[in-house]
């Protein structure tokens, strides 16, 4: 790995994202206090040596809540992007290979899905899947599918026209084999960059869904839910609202920096995404 690859944004993004993921993983086995344990006598404790970030309206340790609360946004975002990436990239690559009816149908379906914001999908799926992390994952995942279809379709179109793909066809290889062995490695860079940018959007989307009650369900903590509960307590304890919001913002920035850094490292000439459209 040369020095150009490790640019400052990539490094900063990787440190933030790595830190948040590590925190989420650690919280599953250890937190300073049990994040679900109520201690009413000790509610609204200010930050201090015992509770670094204080306690909330039910006496729960805010730092522990914040650590466990990372599981929802990070977990949902990663699973949703995985759904979108696997389904969307497969469909996009195969659509680019065939042309004709299958290709037209895939692109039209993708346009159709584009008219459904993730929030509406979550509302439609809420009763079927039950409100919770699964609903958020599937809703955001479906929302990602057309994005990855478009990206992989456009990127793989020239690869399918190349000589080595024609050679593989003559050798009797099927489309799926060619897509996996020849096309995928060629568009992996584009997909990597888009994946990290979409992960930041996933964190925001999960936070919004949990905030309006369509994501992580109580008593499990989640940054979005913590903000919902803190809203009515704003005048009494602003810190309860500030901490989870900052956590969301830093995580989103981390994924954005990682995406920008990856783009600079893998795509210095801006061929993957026109710079002007790379914002999200």
């Amino acid at each position, binding site marked *: 790995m040369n020095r150009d690859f490790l640019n400052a944004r990539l490094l900063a993004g990787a440190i933030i994202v790595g830190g948040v993921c590590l925190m989420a993983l650690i919280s599953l086995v250890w937190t300073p206090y049990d994040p679900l344990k109520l201690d009413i006598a000790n509610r609204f404790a200010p930050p201090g040596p015992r509770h670094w970030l204080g306690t909330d309206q039910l006496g729960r340790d805010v730092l522990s809540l914040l650590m466990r609360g990372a599981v929802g946004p990070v977990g949902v975002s990663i699973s949703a992007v995985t759904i979108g990436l696997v389904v969307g990239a497969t469909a996009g690559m195969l659509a680019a290979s065939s042309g004709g009816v299958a290709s037209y149908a895939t692109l*039209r379906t993708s*346009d*159709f899905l*584009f*008219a*459904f*914001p*993730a*929030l*509406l999908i979550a*509302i*439609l*799926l*809420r*009763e*079927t899947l039950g409100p919770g992390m699964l609903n958020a994952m599937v809703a955001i995942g479906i929302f990602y599918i057309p994005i990855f279809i478009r990206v992989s379709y456009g990127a793989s179109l020239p690869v399918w026209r190349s000589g080595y793909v024609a050679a593989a066809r003559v050798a009797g290889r099927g489309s799926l084999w060619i897509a996996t062995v020849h096309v995928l490695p060629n568009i992996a860079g584009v997909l990597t960059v888009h994946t990290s940018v979409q992960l*930041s959007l996933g964190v*925001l989307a999960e*936070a*919004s869904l949990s*905030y*309006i009650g369509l994501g992580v369900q109580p008593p499990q903590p989640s940054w979005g839910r913590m*903000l919902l509960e*803190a*809203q009515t307590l*704003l*005048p009494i304890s*602003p810190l309860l*609202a*500030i901490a*989870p*919001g900052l956590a*969301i*913002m*830093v995580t*989103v*920035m981390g994924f*954005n920096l990682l995406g920008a850094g990856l783009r600079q490292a893998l795509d210095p000439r801006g061929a993957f995404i*026109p*710079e*002007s*459209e*790379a*914002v*999200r």
Partner: protein
Amino acid sequence: MIRAFAAGVASLLATLLVASVVIFAAMQVLPGDPAQVMLGVNARPDTLAALREQLGLDQPLAVRYWTWVSGLLTGNPGVSHTYAVPVSDLIAARLGVSLPLAALALALAVAIGLPLGMWAAARRGRAVDRGVLIVAQLGIAVPNFWLAMLLVLLFAVTLRWLPPGGFPGWDAGAGPALLALVLPAVALALPQSAILAQVMRQSLVDVLAQDFVRTARAKGLTRGQALRRHALRNAFIPILSVLGLQFPFLLAGTIIIENVFFLPGIGRLVFQAVNQRDLIVVQSVVMLLVAIVAVVNLLVGLAYAAVDPRVRRAA
């Protein structure tokens, strides 16, 4: 241009037709009988049956679908179970809050984002440029509902300049109603304006590096003249596509922000309706929102062709 328009409209109609089937189907698999929810668990079987008949729930699926869709087309999709008023009246009243809010937010986002982006591009590489880029990075990462809470904390709780939430209604006069929309609109607009500023800056920087701008400068135009007469028009093309891409986020944001500020708009309506199993309201509102997104996508595509002759010729 006319052919592109016809193709766009045909694709829009197909999208709406499929969307209506998908939305209707999604509503049918909801567990929980609306009649049961309305009457409670202790309802007598004959009362339940009577209510189902009154709501039309005893009809076959195809008939109910056709009743709903033909109702949508004639502007009367049905009667809300919980509010006991026509769905069209309900939606019209709620749009009176949501549309001004979305319009205000969009206008603010454009008014803040575009000039900032132009300013940064004109001073590329200097302190102003770096400052704008850093602020925009922060703005993009801020969840709008958290920004809303911080704004409430500052302007409503601490300074007491603006109301923290609720809506007095337009009957009380435009002044109080607009005041109630200020904080929600700002919370929606700031993250959007950060995106617009970034896109505007990058787009203008790209255009300014092109040959025709150099030619214009060589003809003797000042930097400002070249920017205004030649670069801006070209730089607006990506802005259009980003506005189109961001629109669903603005819409979703409006739904969430309405819940933060307890505004009686479309967003709160759909959430209350989901909780009360008011299916006809949920499916009609979701259909309306999907239709709005689809129409905006079509308009953006057409505007693209109108602004850029290269797209027009390709189509």
